[in-house]
């Protein structure tokens, strides 16, 4: 489903640095993988490359059989819109839209008919424990609730891949545990694959497989 082959990435400039060097990764459909590693080793960069938000210096990335390099910016954006869901550390929900509209956003981008959208949003909000909060504004929600909104938004359009970058970094341990549980449950329920970038052993423990990213590439670890 996802194939990363010999990918390298460096950032030029006065203090240029190599972030990724000859990285390879294969992900099957429905697989839930955690990526750990030191700060600055390139975990988030790898997610951005997979999402088509950035281009590797060398190597290839294929998602659902499509080589990202063959697509232009709009093509990569459309692929991302359809196949990928994102969960960020800082939630990133639009402050001027209510919860339901935030969750609905990917469906609107995919031009799903409004009636279907409403039905799917209601179902998703119920699934993430936000039943009845659809008309709330983001500023009325707690951090845990905001991340539930973000998870709902990441899964509402049934992507084949969910990319979660430190999704519990801004949450207390109890909320973090609930969110990790919810994320795994909903990803598995949707049949999607997921890559969870984290520093947390507890978070990594929820994954099927744990990979440690180093300057030399990936090393596999068993979930603890």
């Amino acid at each position, binding site marked *: 489903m996802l194939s990363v082959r010999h990918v390298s990435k460096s950032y030029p400039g006065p203090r240029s640095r190599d972030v990724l060097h000859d990285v390879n990764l294969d992900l099957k459909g429905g697989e839930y993988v955690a990526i750990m590693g030191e700060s600055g080793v390139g975990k*988030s960069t790898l997610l*951005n490359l997979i*999402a088509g*938000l*950035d281009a590797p210096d060398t190597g290839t990335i294929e998602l659902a059989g499509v080589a990202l390099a063959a697509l232009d*910016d*709009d093509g990569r*954006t*459309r692929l*991302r*819109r*359809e196949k*990928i869901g*994102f969960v*960020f550390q*800082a*939630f*990133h929900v*639009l*402050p*001027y*839209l209510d919860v339901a*509209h935030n969750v609905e*956003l*990917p469906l*609107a*981008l995919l031009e799903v008919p*409004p009636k279907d959208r409403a039905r799917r949003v209601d179902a998703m909000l119920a699934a993430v424990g936000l039943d009845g909060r659809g008309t709330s*504004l*983001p*500023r009325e929600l707690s951090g845990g609730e905001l991340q539930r909104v973000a998870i709902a*938004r990441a899964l509402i359009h049934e992507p084949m891949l969910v990319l979660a970058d430190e999704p519990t970094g801004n949450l207390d341990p109890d909320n973090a545990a609930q969110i990790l549980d919810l994320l795994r449950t909903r990803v598995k329920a949707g049949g999607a694959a997921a890559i969870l970038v984290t520093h947390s052993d507890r978070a990594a423990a929820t994954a099927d497989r744990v990979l440690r990213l180093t300057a030399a590439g990936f090393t596999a670890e068993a979930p603890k």
Partner: protein
Amino acid sequence: MTGRLLIGPILQHPGRSLLCVVAIALGVALGFAVQLINGSAISEFTRAAQTLAGKADVTVRGPRQGFDESIYVDLARRDGVALASPALEVDAKLPGREEPLRVIGLDVFRAGRLQPALFAEGADLLDSLRADTVFLSPAAMGWLGVKPGDTLTVQSGLARHGLHVAGALTGEASLGRVAVMDIGAAQTLFDRIGRVSRVDLRLASGVDVERFVAALDLAPGLTAERPRDAGTATDRMTRAYRVNLDVLALVALFTGGLLVFSTQALSVAQRRAQIALLRVLGCTRGQIAGLLLAEGLLLGIVGAALGLAGGLALARIAMEIVGADLGAGYFRGIAPVLRVSPVAALTFGGLGVVAAVVGSLGPALEAARAAPAAALKSGDDQRAFAALRPPWIGIACLGAGAAASALPPVDDLPVFGYLAIAALLMGTILSLPALTAFALARIPTAQRIPVALAIEQLRARPAQAALSLAAIVAAVGLSVSMAVMVSSFRTSVDAWLEAVLPADLYLRSSSGGDSAFFTESDQARIRDVPGIARIEFLRWQQVLLDPQRPRVTLLARDGVDLDAERRLPLIGPIASTDPSLPRAWLSEQTAAIYGFAPGQRIAVPLNGRLHEFVVAGIWRDYARQNGAVLIDRAIYTALADDRSANDAGMWLTAGTTSADVQSAIEAVTGKDAVEFATPGEIRAVSLSIFDRTFTVTYALEAAAVLIGLVGLSSAIGSQVLARRREFGMLRHVGVLRGQIARMLATEGFIVAAVGLLIGVALGFAMSLVLIHVVNRQSFHWGMQLHVPVAGLALFIAVMLMLSTITAVFAGRQAMAGDAVRAVKEDW
């Protein structure tokens, strides 16, 4: 450290800070320049008047045509008068020149003791007594390019006379452009035998001047004034014009203050978490407020300093190009030197600083009051704008503005009219969040994602949109109000010119000065010129209706009573009048200033006596600001014993050209002795003078709109910058770059459309106050409302386009960075 905290935010957004500085500087520069120019002109005018009056305690003045010199004898014999000196002042026409030269005829034996500055040092006394000899002030010599020994030609009636320039007056630069000659010679030369126009009185020591003046029982049409008050009278004459420009400067300052307010409010809202951090680290509320006020103070000081320097430069340029009266025609013949007034500098510099500090006050207090814990949390910036939402104060201001527009003038100034404009402007600005929310709520929800997001974004943040709009609404409101007023004025002037210029050709003895005229025999000879089917002569002079007010123009025209309805631009019905009394037709200004209505009686001083007329009707007049009274020339001739005329309107016979008639008349009068103009030429010249007078206004409008537009651009830019993470997230979930650009374009378009809608409505309301209150109370003239629809539509379209482009451009800049990295920034 405090310095870094103060300078840091200013330098972080140099463009935004520069904009505030420029806006403040513009208001300060305009106000300071107007004050400098007028102050210098008034000061020069006063000095000239005092030099002319010399050591006199009291000056008795009459009409320009003069009064009987027996009055001088009576005055000289009065108790308490130590010395009386008669003078005849004539603005003499100089062939080939548009501007006249003031010639003062003096009794050398008396004036020598009272006005020594009016005599040439070491001059032969006999020269002063010779009929063909004149002494010129240094300014007049420079202007005319003549030297002692040369001949100066002046025109009296239609005849030319050469005068020998005997010398220069003592080096009094303040005199302006004057010539001095013997009074007897001047009376003969200008056909004013037995008449004087002024008597200067030196009182005996111990005589109370005020009491002496109060006890003077002067003939109708004469006034007594103290020479030192001459500047005060001129100051009053120019006051309406000056106050209008000052108010324009204050509006510019207000817009500057508003720009500081919106910039600071947006900036403080964006820095809310940083400010909260300072509070967490131990800064007191007072320190936070002080820091933010100091930012405003710094912007104000820099703006004021630049404004004062700019004002000085502007004053120099304006005096070079349009003259000391900014084209209004009040100070002919004097060449003022620019004098920097520390009081004016302090006043306008201070106002600039105050505008900036007051603009910063609201955001500073709000930031200081914010609870640090809540302010550190994302999304709390909306609380910063909560105070802007309630529209009640704004609505109260709008109501107060409407009420103020119905109040009468204060001391001849439209104080409440200006207050009404200020209240309308303030009320609209304060109501902007509510008005914006109201307007945005009425935009239908869109299905397309970019448009839908743009609308939702704006609806959720009406206060920010309102803040972005504040400066553009003020600028558009000001521009639209001025555009509607100027267009109404111009259209009315054009229609008025059409009405008052019915003849085919106009003839004038002199466009400037009062020494040229047509005698009865001149009139008869011109009347006999072939090709003229009909000719109407006009005589005009200045008459005094009220000693406390400037003189009004008395116009005496042939046949006016016969066909007034068709020939005058009347603004009301003709009153049925007492047939035993002669009829007078009052200009709108005269009726308004002196409170006359049709059917009432009016006493007009003519030839030293008061003559009663009945007001038959009111007519529109844009030519004479101090008022005019029009009577039939046959009645004037009988009452004033004056058969001469100044102007004539001629209807030509079929097949006759203007050129034919001009040549034939010049054969009678002599070449260049008279001036001709067709109605088309007069109209073109009048409208070009009109447009020149409003050049300053157009320039200010353009500057205001530019500042408003840059303000809008800056506000959109800063908001877009603050939303980079939002755009980053949108890119993550699959929103195309083009869709984000369309979203921003939609936002820019909607915000500008709302701002323009409100600005145009505000401008229209302000134009009604300008037309029906300010202009009426300042200048006492009415005008027909004329909205320049095509011009405004073009203006709106251009503004919409520029605002949309601005928003997209600002978005491009915001998106130029890495959208991916933007989501890493903490919200």
